Structures are given as C-alpha cells and as structure tokens.
C-alpha cells in the first residue's frame, strides 16, 4: 500500500506533474538536436535544481531522460540525422519512409512503439530489478567481449550491398575508437603527438559528420528536385498495425532492458541489436529492410526506450550506473543528500517506487507530446532544400562544437562528413562505422582484461569460457549470428522454421 502511494506521488501533486511534463517536452528537443545530449542536459540541471526539493529535481530529470531517448528518432526520420547514437538504427528505415511522404505515419508509429518499449522497461524494473542486477554484475570481461563480438556481426545486417565494403566500414569504426590515450595503460595510440587526440575521436562528432553533413552535401545534388508532399492525415497508427507489431516490439523491448541493465552498455547497442534481431526474424517484410520497413523502425525504437528502465535497474538496486545518464543521476542523488548505493532500497524504499511512478508518468507524456505537433514537424521535410541545407549544416557545426566546447570536434565532423559523402557515393555503408565506434572500447578493453586476468594463458581462457554457462550461451549466440548470414540459413532453413 505504501509503495502505491509513493508510486502515485508525482501523479497527484500538480507541481511534480507539471515538472515531469516540462522535462519530457524539453527532453524531446534535447534528444532531437544532435550535439545536445541527455547526459549534458541532466548535468546542467544538477546545478540548476540544486536548491530544489529532491523530488522536484528528479521529476524534471526523469522527464528529460525519457523524452530525450525518444526525441532522437525525430531528426533521424525527418532528416536522416540521428539526434543521438541510439537513433542510428531508426534512420535506416525511418528516413526512407519520410522520403515516401510517410513521415507523419513513421513518427506516429515510432512514438507508440517507444512508449510500449518504455512500459516494458518500467515493468521489468518494477518486478524483477534485484534479480536482473545480480545477473548483470556476474558478466565477466570475457562475456563483455562476447557481447562486443556479437554486436560486430551486425555489420552483416547494416551493409546493403557488398559485405567487403561493410566490413571495411566496421573495422574503420573499431580503429577510430582506439585513437587516443589507451584507458588501461595510458599508452598513446594514433595520436601523432597531438594532445587534442588524447581523448580520442568523439562518436557524436563522427555521427553528425557521417549522417548529417554527408546527407546535406548529397542533397545539394537535388536542389531542383520537387518537394515530397507529406501525407499527414494518418498519424496515430491504426489499432490493427499496433496489434500486428506488438510481438516484435515486446521482443525488442526485452533485448533493450537486458542490454540497458548491463553496466557499460546502453540504448545505442540495444537499438542496433534489436534491429538486427528484427531483420533476422521477420519472415516477409512488406517492404525490404533499409527501404522503409516498419519492422526496422519499430525494433530500435522499442529497444532504446526499454533500455531506460533497464539502466535504472542496477542504479536503484546497487548504486551502479547502467549507462552514462544514470551515472549523472547518481551524482544528483548524492548532492541532494541521498546515498544511492546497495542500501538505497533498504534506507529509502520510497525512492524506488517514486522513480517507477515518475518514469511511468514521463512515458505517458512522451505519448502525448509525441503524437501532437507532428504536422508541424513533418513540414520540415517540405521546406525548400536550399533553405534546409545551410540550416542543417550550421546546426551540425554548433552541435559538434557543443559536445566538448571545442573546435577540434568541428574538424572531425567535417572530415567524417567528407568521408561519408564519398562512402555513400561509392556504396560503402556508413552505419557500420558508428557501430564499430560504439563497440570499439567494449571489445578492446575486455579482450585485454580477459587475457590479463589469465596472465596471457590462452588455454585457461578457453577452459573458463567453456565451463561458464553464461559464456557458452553468448558463444552460441555468436555462432548462430554468423550461421544465419550464410546462404544455407537464408534460403533454406529460415523459411521452413518461421513458416510454422
């Protein structure tokens, strides 16, 4: 009974309700603008809400978090510029839909599916948080390594044409991710003696360049092309559609929760893995993946919002952040005099239910704000290209600058923009570069950690691998991921197994 009253706390107070709404609304814009990240917004709010009551501050921050993760999909669909790395997979099928004049429908569908994903995440958080967090911390370095390798097999799904070109792009991403001072030994890698390279190449700068700038430059070819009229009569997806895609969105949400709950992995990896899983398991998409398949839009959106609930799982139960944003939340709780740690559930049980209730509320606001104002948003696509391109470029530059307040990131954005321009021209996929970049640290660090903990003895590395059930399951998943990209599975087994 107590928990219910804490759950409803933010629903009953008009002030808390309004703050959550405001946070969610702001969050959608923070998420949509590349370069403004949820992490950044939440940490600014820490000093801003310093003197506030802790519940008020949390409502605003939770709103920003929920809204921000959702907001990344807006620009991905409308402009092919993901607002955050977690929306990269959304752009793959969302943008083709906008090009067909279906931007309104795509945003409507992604909103509903994000909200469903969000609810699944919250539900798992409410019901199974302690169990999942105990499971999540048993991941050993070798298990994270397996997870990274599993992620790398996604290159296959992200490459549309030649696999060799996709592999090149993926390896380039991994390599770019290793630039800078090695976090484990402080050895310089590819820094050429330049101090600005110590911290490596920022993934957001690369993303804005590869997606935003290169897209804008390509659009220059079509300045005179007639503008696509957007059909905006159908925004709220019909019930039949929602029901048809419900199993897929729930499956994707579970991927999102688990990946989100693992410390060290977040919504970006979750969204890409869910996309891959959808591509593998969808028998006959109406439209092929990469050309505007609705399945390809639903899976990543459900997964990245479900990862929000997932990220809270280790944070609320153990005081271990599930991702970068929850790490800032932990700092905020400290400042407000709470002790986020394994004792939080014992000392402050109301915090748990308050957060669950507040997340639910924010998720409802995502639905409300997500489905209103789509008409105006869709008009963006109808703007003349000659006006849009300079604005997109300026926003990309400012966004890149804002990441670290440094011009260096602007240079990287530009370099990746030019590279991306030629890669697109010659049919090299750009998605795998970001995939490699996201997974690079996970792979590099855990590979070396795994070897170092065995003192360089490969024999005991494999012995431990095969005796740990978790590692064996992950290994099997990798083998299956490879196998499923072979012709035997594609032509023969997949139709048979899935037709039943």
């Amino acid at each position: 009974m107590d928990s219910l009253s804490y759950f409803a706390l933010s629903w009953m107070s008009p002030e808390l309700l309004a703050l959550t709404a405001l946070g969610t609304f702001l969050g959608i814009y923070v998420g949509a603008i590349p370069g403004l990240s949820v992490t950044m917004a939440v940490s600014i709010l820490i000093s801003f809400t310093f003197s506030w009551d802790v519940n008020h501050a949390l409502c605003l921050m939770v709103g920003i978090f929920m809204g921000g993760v959702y907001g990344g999909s807006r620009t991905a669909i409308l402009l092919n510029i993901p607002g955050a790395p977690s929306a990269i997979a959304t752009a793959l099928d969302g943008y083709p839909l906008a090009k067909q004049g279906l931007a309104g429908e795509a945003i409507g569908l992604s909103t509903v599916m994000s909200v469903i994903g969000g609810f699944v995440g919250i539900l798992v958080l409410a019901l199974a948080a302690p169990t999942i967090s105990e499971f999540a911390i048993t991941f050993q370095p070798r298990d994270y390594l397996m997870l990274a390798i599993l992620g790398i097999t996604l290159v296959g799904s992200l490459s549309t044409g030649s696999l060799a070109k996709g592999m090149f792009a993926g390896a380039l991403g991994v390599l770019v991710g290793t630039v800078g001072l090695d976090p484990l030994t402080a050895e310089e890698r590819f820094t050429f003696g330049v101090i600005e390279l110590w911290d490596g190449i920022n993934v957001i700068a690369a993303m804005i360049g590869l997606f935003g700038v290169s897209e804008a430059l390509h659009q220059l070819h079509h300045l005179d092309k007639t503008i696509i009229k957007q059909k905006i009569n159908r925004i709220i997806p019909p019930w039949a559609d929602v029901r048809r895609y419900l199993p897929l969105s729930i499956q994707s949400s579970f991927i999102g929760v688990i990946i989100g709950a693992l410390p060290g992995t977040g919504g970006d990896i979750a969204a890409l893995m869910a996309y891959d899983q959808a591509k593998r398991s969808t028998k006959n998409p109406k439209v092929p993946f990469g050309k505007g398949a609705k399945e390809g839009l639903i899976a990543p959106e459900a997964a990245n919002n479900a990862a929000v609930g997932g990220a809270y799982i280790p944070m609320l139960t153990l005081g271990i952040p599930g991702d970068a944003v929850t790490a800032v939340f932990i700092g905020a709780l400290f400042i407000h005099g709470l002790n986020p740690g394994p004792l939080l559930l014992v000392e402050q049980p109301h915090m748990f239910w308050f957060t669950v209730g507040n997340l639910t509320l924010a998720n409802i606001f995502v639905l409300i704000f997500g489905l209103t104002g789509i008409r105006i948003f869709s008009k963006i696509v109808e703007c003349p290209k000659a006006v849009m391109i300079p604005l997109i470029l300026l926003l990309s530059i400012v966004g890149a600058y804002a990441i670290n307040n440094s011009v260096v990131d602007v240079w990287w954005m530009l370099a990746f923009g030019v590279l991306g321009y030629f890669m697109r021209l010659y049919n090299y996929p750009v998605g795998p570069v970001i995939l490699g970049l996201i997974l690079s640290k996970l792979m590099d660090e855990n590979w070396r950690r795994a070897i170092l903990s065995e003192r360089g003895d490969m024999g005991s590395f494999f012995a431990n691998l095969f005796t740990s059930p978790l590692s064996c399951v992950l290994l099997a998943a990798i083998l299956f991921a490879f196998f499923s990209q072979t012709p035997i599975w594609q032509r023969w087994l997949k139709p048979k197994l899935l037709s039943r």
Partner: protein
Amino acid sequence: MKKIILSAFAGLALSSAAMADYPTKDIQGIIQWGAGGSTDTVMRSVSPHAEEVLGTDIILTNRTGGVGAIATKYVNAKQADGYTLLMGAENPQMYKVLGLADIDYSDMIPVNVLARGIPLLVAQNDAPFDTMQEMIDYIKANPGAVKVGSTGKGGLASIVMAMIQSEVDLDVTTVPYNGDGPALTALQGGAIDVMPAVLGAAVQHVKAGRMKAIALVDKESNPVVPDTAPIVDALPGLSTYLPYGPFFGVFVKQGTPDDVVAKLSEAFSVGAESEDFQNLMQSRGYGVMNLSGDAAVDFLENYRSVSSWLVHDAGFAKHSPEEFDIPRP
C-alpha cells in the same frame, strides 16, 4: 596627443574600476572531468553557494580529455582576470613526471582546495583473507593468484600498490579498469579480488555487505568505517607517505590580481563551509579541507612530491622528479 592620453587614463580608470567590483560578468568554470564524475559532482554542489557570495553566475563547462590536461591548458590560455576558473582533481600534480604536460598546479594559483579522499583497500566477500596481514600472507603463499584492479599507471590504485610494494614484495595479477566505479562493479561480480579505491566510492558497498574492507590507507582509522584498521598497523613504514589521497580544488591562472583571488577564495570558502556541502562530503567519505593561500600551496607540494617519487621508484615515471626540483618526501 591629449586625446590619446585622456583615453588612456579613461581606460585605466575603467579597468581599475572593473577590478574593484569584480565580478562584472558571468564566470566560466572549466571542469576537468566528465558529467557525473566525482569532480563534477563536487564542483556542481559547491558552485551555487559561491555564486551567491559573488553575485554572478558561474557557468560550468566540462572539458574532458588528456587526463585533465586539456582543461588545464585551456584555462592557462585565457586571460588572468579571474573569469575563467579551473575546477580539477589531483591529476595535474603527476603530469610532469609522467610526461603528460609541462604544467601543473605549482604553475597556477590555488583558490581553494576543497576536499580530500582517503584510499581504502577492499576485497570481494569470498576472498580468503580479512586483514592486511592475512592478505600479505595469502599472496605470498599463492603468487599470482590474486587479481588486483587498477585504474592505469599513475592512477590512485597504482600508487597505493606502489606504496605497499615499497615495503613488501607481492606477486599479484593486475587487471586494469577505466575508473574505480567499473572496477568496484567487477569486484562484486568476482572478476577481480582486491581493489584500492576511494573510501567514498566503496563505503556504501561495504556497509551493505557486498564487499569487505581490508585496510584504510591512512595513519588513523576513520569514523565512517570504524572497524577497519589503518594500513600502518601492518606496514608501519608507510607512514612517511601518509596522509595521502585524491583531492578537488579550484584554481586560476598565474598573474590573476590578488584582490580577485581573495574574493574567489572567500566565495568558495563559504561554499565549502555550507551545510549542504559538508553533508555531501561526509556521505561520500571525503574530508573537507577548505584550504587557500599558503596552506593550499603546502598541501599541493606535499602531494606532488609523494606521488612523483612513488611512481619514479616503482619504475613507471617517464622523467625523474629531480628534473623538476621536486624534493623527496
């Protein structure tokens, strides 16, 4: 000619007037580390109080990279007018010997050294030892079997291990992590056995019984973990290095006018004394120092000499501390 002199005077009058009622515009605070880190948390909680005293906004910006060197260089590239503050941790004190940069806090003016952390040696619950002496005996009996987490060469964990190694020779397997947060998570999952971490980062986990405290790396025991013995009980030789620990401070560029520094010091001192800040530091297991002026300089010098010589003797310094006239502790 007259005009020029007049305008020069006017300019002078203007600038001295500007000094007198410093600050006349927003102040920029450059944080060396990323959002959500401990430096970030400390600075974001002390700044609102300093803002009240100064009567202006302090806009906080995270400029990460190069173990804090990028932020340090940035602040030193700005004007010495007190409108750009460096909010940093202990790292720059090691730049010179590790060959990371040719600048450290001795080249800047400390506004306030706010707080200091105490290192704590923790072990996973299944580890077959409970005290420092038992741990030493176990490692000696099973060379290479104990996995010790680290945060890279020059990090807190590596310096604490170097202190211990200077007294007893221990054969352990070192597994590097990207900060003590991830390492403590790995400790709970059993990936490593022992980790030297900051008291504040580990204390909640110890209290919840998720890991056990082996020794406090300090001369005396601490009320936050009253049952944990100080490391000098087992290794009395370490007392030459102690007290030792990471710290957080606010700095300005060399050449900033004295009255500006005084005003800033006063503002941050009020912030450090505020109840909120004291509570926050206590809950995180940090000791509030609130040092400015010569006291701050002395503290910084001692820290630099201890850590520089330890890494030098452990063999992972690029340059000898002698090159920079750093005295031996």
